[in-house]
């Protein structure tokens, strides 16, 4: 299935005069895996709360499948699954009972649909055990299972890999990829783990102070090219690097000015008597882009 699934139209939300989300407009299509990033207080949680109808926008509208969440929450959320951060269950009930309990708030629990979700998350061998005996990873998988009943076309995940061991993280990422790939489910992930976002997300939304400061593939905006050079005489190289319009970062990496080629810099170094033994292109990371986009201007003295 293709087409627009989520639309936010000029959404604003203020709490007692403090703006949490400011004129936010975006759309998410079926099957997309989208990351929602931003520093603490950037408006990620409020954006998710707006999508779930937990808070009403001060201005603007949130539409899921064309249905206004504020206008008809029940219909808008009918096929939306959610995994909150640190999901909690009733320890004295079994996984299956917890699942049925949560599903019952939306529809008549359907054993076949529940079993399908349980199998998808690989919890079928322990689903009839009490949740009190579950590990953190199993609780996280149970949380994902409850989000998959009834078959959703949108799943919102808040810090899905939080607290998981490395195997758990890999398993969770695999399940997110399968959700999108096999079932065409759109997934929105709010996360602080940038490596996770790099691995599983098609698209990144970066919020800062309630405003959308970036929307696209994270490597669409990689900034200036950066290299690491291994040279024998840094003292001699420094003025040549400066003349070539490049700068040396705090991490020792050389950042080229726009329009400059690394070959020109290397040639200038060699002609200046500096021996260059290796040149390594530094792959831009999401962390670099994120830091650049959310960097606060330094306050004056």
């Amino acid at each position, binding site marked *: 299935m293709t087409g627009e699934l989520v639309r936010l139209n000029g959404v604003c939300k203020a709490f007692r005069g403090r703006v949490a989300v400011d004129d936010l407009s975006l759309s998410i299509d079926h099957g997309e895996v989208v990351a929602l990033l931003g520093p603490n207080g950037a408006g990620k949680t409020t954006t998710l709360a707006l999508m779930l109808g937990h808070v009403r926008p001060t201005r603007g509208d949130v539409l899921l499948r064309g249905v206004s969440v504020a206008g008809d*929450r029940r*219909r808008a959320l009918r096929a939306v699954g959610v995994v*909150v951060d640190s999901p*909690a269950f*009733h320890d004295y*009930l079994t996984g299956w009972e917890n699942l049925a*309990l*949560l599903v*019952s*708030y939306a529809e008549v629990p359907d054993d076949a649909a529940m079993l399908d979700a349980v199998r998808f998350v690989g919890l079928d061998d322990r689903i009839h055990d009490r949740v009190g005996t579950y590990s953190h990873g199993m609780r996280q998988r149970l949380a994902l299972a409850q989000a998959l009943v009834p078959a959703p076309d949108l799943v919102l995940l808040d810090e899905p890999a939080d607290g998981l061991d490395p195997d758990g993280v890999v398993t969770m990422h695999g399940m997110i990829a399968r959700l999108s790939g096999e079932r065409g489910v759109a997934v929105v992930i709010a996360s602080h783990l940038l490596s996770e976002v790099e691995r599983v997300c098609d698209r990144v939304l970066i919020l800062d102070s309630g405003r959308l400061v970036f929307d696209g593939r994270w490597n669409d905006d990689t900034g200036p090219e950066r290299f690491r050079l291994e040279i024998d005489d840094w003292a001699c190289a420094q003025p040549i690097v400066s003349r070539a319009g490049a700068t040396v970062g705090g991490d020792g990496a050389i950042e080229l000015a726009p329009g400059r080629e690394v070959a020109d810099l290397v040639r200038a170094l060699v002609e200046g008597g500096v021996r260059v033994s290796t040149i390594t292109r530094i792959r831009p990371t999401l962390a670099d882009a994120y830091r650049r986009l959310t960097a606060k201007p330094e306050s004056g003295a």
Partner: protein
Amino acid sequence: MAAFLRQLRWELRRLWRRPRTYVGFVAALLFEVLLYATLGLPVVRAQFLRGAATLHEHLKLGEPFSALSNAVRVTGQTIVFIGGVSLALVAGDLVARDVEDGTLRMVFCRPVSRTSVFFQKLVACAVYSVTLTSFVGVSALLLALVFEGTSGGLVVVSFRESILGAHEFGAGIERYVASVPLLAASILTVPLLAFTLSCFPMKAATAASVAVLVLLGDWTIQSFPAFAPLSPYTLTTRIVSWRQMFNDAIPWLRLQRNYSELAAVDLLLVVVGWLAFCRRPLTSR
């Protein structure tokens, strides 16, 4: 309506699967056994008879110790001390504990309204209250029969409450059984108070503690002679109205007035709780 009933069924199922729900039943049973065992001690009986024998003889009320008379005494004590605390604990848990644990956040990710969830929990609170109260009433009677046998009638005397009742065993059983639903209706105010408090942003233990403190404070004012002028204004004066069922002539008008006033308090608590529940934040952190 079908969705509400389906969710209510799960709410009740969850309530009865929780070990804490049964603490009140076990505590009530142990308390009743303790009271019956104490009432059976010769030294206690002697002391009791010194105070009551003359009265019973003078009024021709018969034997002061009997299964039914003791059942009324024990039920009254158990429901105030154990019932009140247990009801407040469980009712306080219904909302506040779910918020503390984070399970209510999971629920509201589903397309369900707060009003619907509030009334499911309210009904669960009422069902628990009625069940525990009925259990106290029935278990107190059964234990009384075990400890005292079936001899003797039902005698209840309380000058403060204007109660004077003496009934044969058969009529006494009928009065006792009829009093249990009234007891359940009157004590409902206590769990409702805890439930309403738990709808505000506070811990479950705080909600239960405040409700118990209100109950004990109210009970103290109602029962302590120095506070007699304030007694007519207390909740406890109305809550103990169930004992009027043992009066020779049941004061129906007084019962009607007291239960109407309790119902008004209950309704006020429900409205306040609902408003608080619809506005409270769902995060415990």
